[in-house]
């Protein structure tokens, strides 16, 4: 087990950031801490890194209890949300920092830095200053810097949060590949469920300082343990206490015994996916997600009356 967090609680004044949280991370895993802002995910990450101390509970890395150990002795690589570059140092010196503070021989430092800059595709930019890099490049520099001292675990706080959509997509893909290549146990924090499902093998869903559910993206999507997880992981329709997924709603040209009448209020084309907003006979509004092909076949248009087959809804106690 690479990282074990046992019954950790943390308060900031009267605010409860973490309430009796336990998380286990397998060796070599790529895990996401997913939750809305204020759910405690960043605090948990900072506690693992030693940047915050828990009020109660303990943290061990590779079987060693490090709850009281200072950040610098934990062997943890940390990538900050805004990258925290050393602005007065070149890219090379930034990446070399973790090695030069350990007084590694110069030749060794240069070799390792060159290797890392190749890995993060920043070779050729070694002499630049952080102010001359784009957001994506800063991100990769921060990653190379964190990896330089060969950390036991890599922690990333909202790694893609400050980037524009295009770069974000590329970096996600790239982070996943990088992880396959170097296999260091990695935890990243995100509030974006799509990002978590795209990148991580394991997801810990957090809310209000507690862990709601842990599992693979598939498990969380198919078997959410509660309403929060279901509505946070993927889109939902709410019919009273019941929740149903928009893509589970079937739209048919002709009614049968298992369908209800539905009035098409609006049709939104989002590329491959088409979003159909419907009003049921009892006046309730829901929306369905269909493919482009289905929409074309049904010749969906506003004002049309169709048949909708609703899936068995989930009700959480």
């Amino acid at each position, binding site marked *: 087990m690479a990282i074990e967090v046992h019954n950790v609680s943390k308060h900031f004044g009267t605010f409860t950031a973490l309430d009796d949280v336990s998380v286990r991370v397998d060796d070599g895993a790529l895990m996401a801490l997913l939750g809305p802002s204020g759910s405690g995910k960043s605090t948990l990450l900072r506690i693992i890194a030693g940047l915050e101390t828990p009020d109660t509970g303990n943290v061990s890395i590779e079987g060693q209890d490090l709850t009281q150990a200072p950040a610098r002795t934990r062997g943890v690589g*940390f990538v*900050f949300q805004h990258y925290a570059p050393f602005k*007065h140092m070149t890219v090379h010196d930034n990446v070399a*920092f973790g090695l030069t*503070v350990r007084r590694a021989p110069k030749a060794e430092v240069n070799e390792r830095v060159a290797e890392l800059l190749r890995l993060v595709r920043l070779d050729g930019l070694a002499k630049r200053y952080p102010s*001359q890099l784009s957001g994506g490049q800063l991100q990769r520099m921060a990653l190379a810097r964190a990896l330089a001292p060969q950390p036991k675990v890599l922690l990333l706080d909202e790694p893609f949060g400050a980037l524009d959509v295009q770069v974000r997509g590329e970096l996600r893909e790239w982070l996943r590949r990088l992880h396959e290549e170097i296999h260091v146990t990695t935890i990243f924090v995100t509030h974006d469920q799509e990002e978590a499902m795209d990148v991580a093998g394991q997801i810990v869903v957090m809310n209000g300082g507690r862990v709601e559910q842990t599992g693979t993206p598939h498990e969380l999507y198919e078997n959410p343990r509660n309403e929060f997880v279901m509505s946070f992981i993927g889109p939902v329709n709410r019919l009273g206490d019941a929740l149903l997924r928009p893509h589970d709603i079937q739209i048919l040209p002709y009614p049968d015994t298992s369908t209800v009448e539905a009035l098409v209020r609006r049709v939104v084309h989002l590329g491959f996916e088409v979003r159909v907003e419907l009003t049921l006979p009892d006046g309730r509004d829901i929306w369905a997600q269909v493919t482009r092909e289905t929409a074309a076949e049904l010749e969906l248009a506003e004002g049309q009356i169709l048949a909708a087959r609703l899936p068995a809804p989930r009700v959480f106690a």
Partner: protein
Amino acid sequence: MASTARRLSLRFVALGYLLALLGAPVAMIFYRTFEHGLAPVWSAVTQPNAIHAFWLSVELVAIVVPLNTVFGIGMALLIERGRFRGRWLLGLLLDLPFAISPVVVGLALVLVYGRTGWFGNWLTAHSIQVIFSIPGMVLATAFVSLPFVARETVPVLHELGTDAEQAAATLGASAWQTFRRVTLPAIRWGVVYGVVLTTARALGEFGAVSIVSGRLEGQTQTLPLYVQDRFENFDTAGAYAAAVVLALLAFATLLGMNLLARRTHRDTVV
């Protein structure tokens, strides 16, 4: 139209204020000093007492500025990064030298370290003379120029935030390595500016030093004290000449720091 007129009049008032307050007096001093040519000025500033006063002022600055720089940076770190109750009290204490009149500072030092003061007997017994000698003058100068470095550094530290320092810690840097390699380079312009102000203040200090030094000619007379002494003895030529030296020293400090700042800046940040 109205706004142009307003802008122009604002400019006029601002420049006029500056001219009346700073430009005219300084220009007048320079004019008076050099109105009979260079020779009398040269003979005035090469008087033994003038030379002694000059070096004494330089010596005081050389002792006080490093002391207050180290203290100021430490204090700024404590105020901005410390985690204890009553940090605001520390900030308040730090401003005390701004609030207290230098004359009062001088008197207070005499009360504590003078022959009849609290430590008077002990100091006399160990034949250490504080008042009417260099140690007392160092204390007085250090006190009045205490807040500058800390006051200039605190906002820069605040602006910097703690991310870079925490990053350094996770990369294995000790507290000293983090300070030396991450914090100090990031706050250096704040510190430099504080040092310039400290130097200028220490160089010009009059009130407190006037009291604790005893103003012994050729012994404990700093440059500002020398200027006053010449003035009181109707040696206006000597007073003006020394005043000009003092002003030039201050200019040189500002200019030197400015050049240094510009050069280093060009080297590191593009």
